[in-house]
């Protein structure tokens, strides 16, 4: 299986290279960073100053994990870290709220890298058909803030791994 990583926004090349390496190591799959021109502006909400993640998902090719430096939303929530099609093949994550600077703290590159890997594994897990997991250490545990995101491990629990495994052959 080859996973396509798609940067949606500027300044992500190095970050995506690192993510490709981290995902390849975590899932034992090959990852390819691609650049497909995508018009994100249709998904931009002037009122909210955020991008509508569901709309972006509709525009990305199948078999893709899109990564955005911008803040994402769905209409009913103030923000989302990411979104994925359940049992589909498209997912998106945002680095906006994964950065320490968003919380008024000094930048921390290693923390951001780990958070991005966890959030990517989480959204891909939804693509594999997983719902949220009760095990707080599992990467599929529900997290709506960086504190709980940091508590999780960058891996699926044994139960979730059995669901994911067939997709990784």
């Amino acid at each position, binding site marked *: 299986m080859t996973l396509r990583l798609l940067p949606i926004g500027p300044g992500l090349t190095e970050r995506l290279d690192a993510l490709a390496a981290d995902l390849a190591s975590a899932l034992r799959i090959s990852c390819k960073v691609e650049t497909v021109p995508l018009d994100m502006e249709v998904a931009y909400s002037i009122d*909210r100053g955020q991008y509508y993640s*569901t709309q972006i998902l509709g525009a990305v090719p199948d078999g893709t994990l899109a990564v955005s430096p911008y803040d994402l*939303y*769905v*209409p*009913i*929530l*103030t*923000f*989302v870290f990411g979104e994925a099609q*359940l049992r589909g093949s498209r997912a998106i994550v945002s680095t906006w709220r994964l950065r320490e600077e968003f919380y008024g703290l000094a930048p921390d590159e290693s923390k951001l890298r780990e958070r991005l890997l966890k959030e990517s594994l989480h959204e891909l897990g*939804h693509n594999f058909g997983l*719902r*949220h997991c009760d095990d707080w250490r599992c990467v599929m545990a*529900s997290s*709506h*803030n960086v504190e709980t995101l940091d508590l999780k491990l960058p891996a699926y629990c044994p139960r979730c791994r059995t669901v994911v495994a067939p997709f990784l052959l």
Partner: protein
Amino acid sequence: MPKGTVLIVDDDPVVRDSLGKWFESEDYDVGTSSDARSALDELARRHYDIALLDIKMPGTDGIELQARLKDVDPELPVVIMTGYASVETAVKALKNGAYDYITKPFDPDELVHLIDKAIAHRAAQREVARLRESLHQIFPGATLIGQSPAMKRVMELVETVAPTDATVLITGESGTGKEVVARSIHQLSPRRLHPMVVIHCGALAETLLESELFGHEKGSFTGAQARKKGKFEVADGGTAFLDEISDISLKTQSDLLRVLQEKEIVRVGGTQSIKVDFRCVAATNKKLERLVEEGLFRPDLYYRLNVFAIEIPPLRARREDIPLLATHFLDKFAVNMNRPPQKMAQRAMEMLMDYNWPGNVRELENAVERALLINREPELPPEAFPFQLNPTAPSSGRRLEDIERIHIERILTETGWNLSRAARVLDIDRTTLYNKIKRYSLRESAPNKVTPA
């Protein structure tokens, strides 16, 4: 297993879809409705743990729908979703019984906490209801026993008055079962899931009774080391049973009258009125009318208490109930004492029916307990009862003290001088028994041969 079931009611399909998907990803079962009518249908169709209603919808709005949903499921926690936060809408929603309100768009963290809290609240409510029900099954309350016309009349009166909130005055000789009747009234009333508080007015000195009834503030008198709730406050929502009501002083009578009229109390040493909601059931073995005539009982309080009167007949006036009662007590004590079921010998039963029972049902209950305690035969013989003397006959000039001494001595012998057991049979406390043993110079080693009475 899903965490719970959520009903989303919003006319905006984007909200329904987006919120529905989000809840599904959070492992909730979701149902959606676009208007009030389909929401009511949906709620009638299946069980929901929580409903989220948009405040602004064409036709019936969220606040109005909330009231209608509550008609279908009164315990359903309803969260109102508003487009903009305003104190006015929040107050309106909460005043109408909403569990909470939340402003769109939702902070996911806040939403998760709110939903989890509401579902836990609902689960706790159900658990409380279940426990109350089990408690009610375990302690179904006192049962009125009797098939005599007099007792049937009492039962009819109890059934008539119980569902109302009327004050009841129960009269009857000592030991006739006034508290049992009060408990039956409470158990058959809508207040049965709340406490029934018993206040023995005769057992306490005036100042103590006041503090017991109305509570006291810290430091209101010597010994009042902490604030204490009064019995009326404890009885909130339930029934206050005032036993031996005739024994209260004129001062306390006037305070009690005020409580019954205003349904408010002021704690001893306090200044603030506290609202209380209780049903009053009072009992006395005296003729209150006579006390009113003698100026010992306030007439206004008498009229307030005597809204509905129930007079319990003495046991001697309903002798046909004696076998039923005796068998009931026999079964009850056999279970309590972990003994096999016992039968009453025919002659013993005849003797019980002949006896005059000055102490009424309580005396019968004690007599059966005592007989069961000392009897080792499969049937209870007449000899197991202490009153073979036939007390309906005159006691041939014997002094009361002599009868008491003989009776105590006899019980002590039968219980092997076990003071606790003897005190229980005699229905007196250990200290009283000890004082009587001293007074009559009773000794275990003494020739304690039972004098046939």
